[in-house]
């Protein structure tokens, strides 16, 4: 197990370096340049050159990259172009609002999807199952941004019940009223995926002989469902949640931008618009490392969920 973990962590480093090369190249190939953010509409070449020198953009790209890499390896991701702080500080400041949003969204989606999937499987082909399947299909077909705008239109504009944007708080936690809509959009958008996975894996495990064994032991149906069927059926859901973490940033960009949520998604959007190279690079590396470490955690979780799985 230890060997497995060390091995996996060792794989992460070269992957991140490769990724940074790719992102760096993409940024420099993209049209436009960062210095325009600092300049008025009528600037001289000298002014532009001064800004470029200040930002370190007058060096050859390869040297720029190696300088960045050297510092990054020692944990320094450099100064942002436009935020007046280090990249690390900017990311850390934006991290908590996003984590708050994602944790709540994940809770919402699991709390809805698992019972929905289980009920669908137990009452297979019943009206209830068909209703859940239909609702699921509807959810799958609804784009996040459209759903977000509909919610905003209904609850903020027409009914005036919920604030349309911001966290509504200067403290550690966002105001509950402000959380409702972003969490609903992020959370509900994952429900269809999760519910379908739970339904099909429950159908698999319910057809195993050990479910009959459990019934023969005299267990109540509810206990058979939770203790025998669901415990194994949850494994594919953990896999899917692990994979969907890769979509976290992309999903959160849309939602945070619409709801003006000061998190990583909004930061990513801003950084791309402003062509703030260090922030884009830092954020990409950060997200990629998060996804890789998360998938490692999921792999380790497997061994607790299914004792048949062992890593050597």
């Amino acid at each position, binding site marked *: 197990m230890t060997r497995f973990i060390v091995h996996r962590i060792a794989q992460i480093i070269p992957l991140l370096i490769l990724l940074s090369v790719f992102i760096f190249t993409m940024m420099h190939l993209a049209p436009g340049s960062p210095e325009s953010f600092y300049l008025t509409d009528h600037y001289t070449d000298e002014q532009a050159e001064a800004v470029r020198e200040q930002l370190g953009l007058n060096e050859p790209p390869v040297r720029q990259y190696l300088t960045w890499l050297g510092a990054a390896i020692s944990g320094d991701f450099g100064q942002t172009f436009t935020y007046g702080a280090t990249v690390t500080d900017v990311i850390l400041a934006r991290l908590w609002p996003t984590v708050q949003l994602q944790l709540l969204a994940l809770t919402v989606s699991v709390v809805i999807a698992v019972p929905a999937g289980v009920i669908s499987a137990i009452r297979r082909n019943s009206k209830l199952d068909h209703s859940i399947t239909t609702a699921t299909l509807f959810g799958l077909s609804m784009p996040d941004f459209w759903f977000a705008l509909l919610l905003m239109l209904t609850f903020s504009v027409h009914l005036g019940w919920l604030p349309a944007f911001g966290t509504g708080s200067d403290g550690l936690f966002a105001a509950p009223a402000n959380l409702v809509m972003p969490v609903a959009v992020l959370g509900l958008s994952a429900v269809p995926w999760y519910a379908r996975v739970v339904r099909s894996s429950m159908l698999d495990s319910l057809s195993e002989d050990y479910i009959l064994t459990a019934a*023969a032991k005299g267990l*109540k149906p509810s206990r058979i469902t939770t203790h025998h069927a669901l415990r194994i059926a949850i494994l594919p859901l953990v896999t899917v949640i692990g994979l969907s973490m890769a979509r976290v940033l992309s999903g959160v960009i849309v939602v945070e931008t619409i709801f003006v949520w000061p998190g990583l998604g909004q930061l990513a959007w801003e950084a791309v618009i402003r062509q703030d190279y260090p922030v884009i690079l830092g954020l990409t590396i950060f997200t990629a490392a998060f996804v890789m470490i998360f998938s490692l955690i999921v792999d380790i979780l497997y061994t607790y969920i299914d*004792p048949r799985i062992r890593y050597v």
Partner: protein
Amino acid sequence: MERSSYPSEVVNGDSRPRSSSPLLTVKDLTKTFPVRKGVLGRAAAVIQAVTDVSFSIFPGQTLGLVGESGSGKSTTALCITRLLEVTSGSIVFEGQELADLSRRNMRPIRRNMQIVFQDPYSSLDPRMTVKEIIAEPLRVYGAYGGRGQGERKVHELLEKVGMNASDAARFPHEFSGGQRQRISIARALALEPRLLVLDEPVSALDVSVQAQVTNLLRDLQDAMGLAYLFIAHDLAVVHHVSDWIAVMYLGRIVEYGSVDQVFSEPTHPYTQALLSAIPNADPTKADDLDEKIILSGEVPDPADPPSGCRFRTRCWKAEPICAEVSPELVDTLGIGHPSACHFPELHAGGVHQ
């Protein structure tokens, strides 16, 4: 083992003395499955998995239920243990009718009637340790006691089936098929049942392991006075463990009697065919080879069984009446055990191929 009692008051009017009253009496058990077709899932046809099956099992004895796959043996087992709903018929266990019992009221009965499944790989919950698997039925019925007491019971059960107490902490996937089947047996024995339904308990095991497990089952039966419903497709295994034998074909019992009666005086052509197919290990009896009855054709579709006698499509003795009248399970020849054939004979006769 003495085979004094005739198990089948429900089968015919035979009135030989019985040693005791039956533990389990099944009468006219029928199970049908709807075959759903089309978008709306309407019942398009009905599969008759088990039709009018009747037999009895006496305390401490074994009834072997034999037949090809698809003959309804396992369905019978699942109906008796009420893991499947019964379509019609009666199942009387320890004087109580089970066929129409609710799931809730069935639960206390399960203490005395346990089942072991064919597949030792899928019948044990992979997430549970051996200890948890065996302890669970004890916990359900409040028989686990305190921690020390419960663990001792689990260890005793493991030793009873020839495993080590130290195996309790391991998971099912760490064991071989034979060991896993022993764990299943230990789990089934935990509540000290009176009847054990064994649904092909050795069919998935290697032949050498089969013998170990069947011997274990015999030892346990002698020690604990268990009654078995032993389901198998292997006649040699059934011969080894059974006191009584019922031969099933396409959902019906076609011949029923004591082991000696069925093996030495089979009168139903299907039983005769099955028996002739047992490989003979004795080369001095090589002439038996010439007498093998090779059945032609396949088992018919249970959704559309043949009219009259269900075996007639593969029977070398079939006459027009076989297509019209379904033969009763009666002792036509007066030799002591019944078979469901219009033309029962002590010897197969007719055309051999």
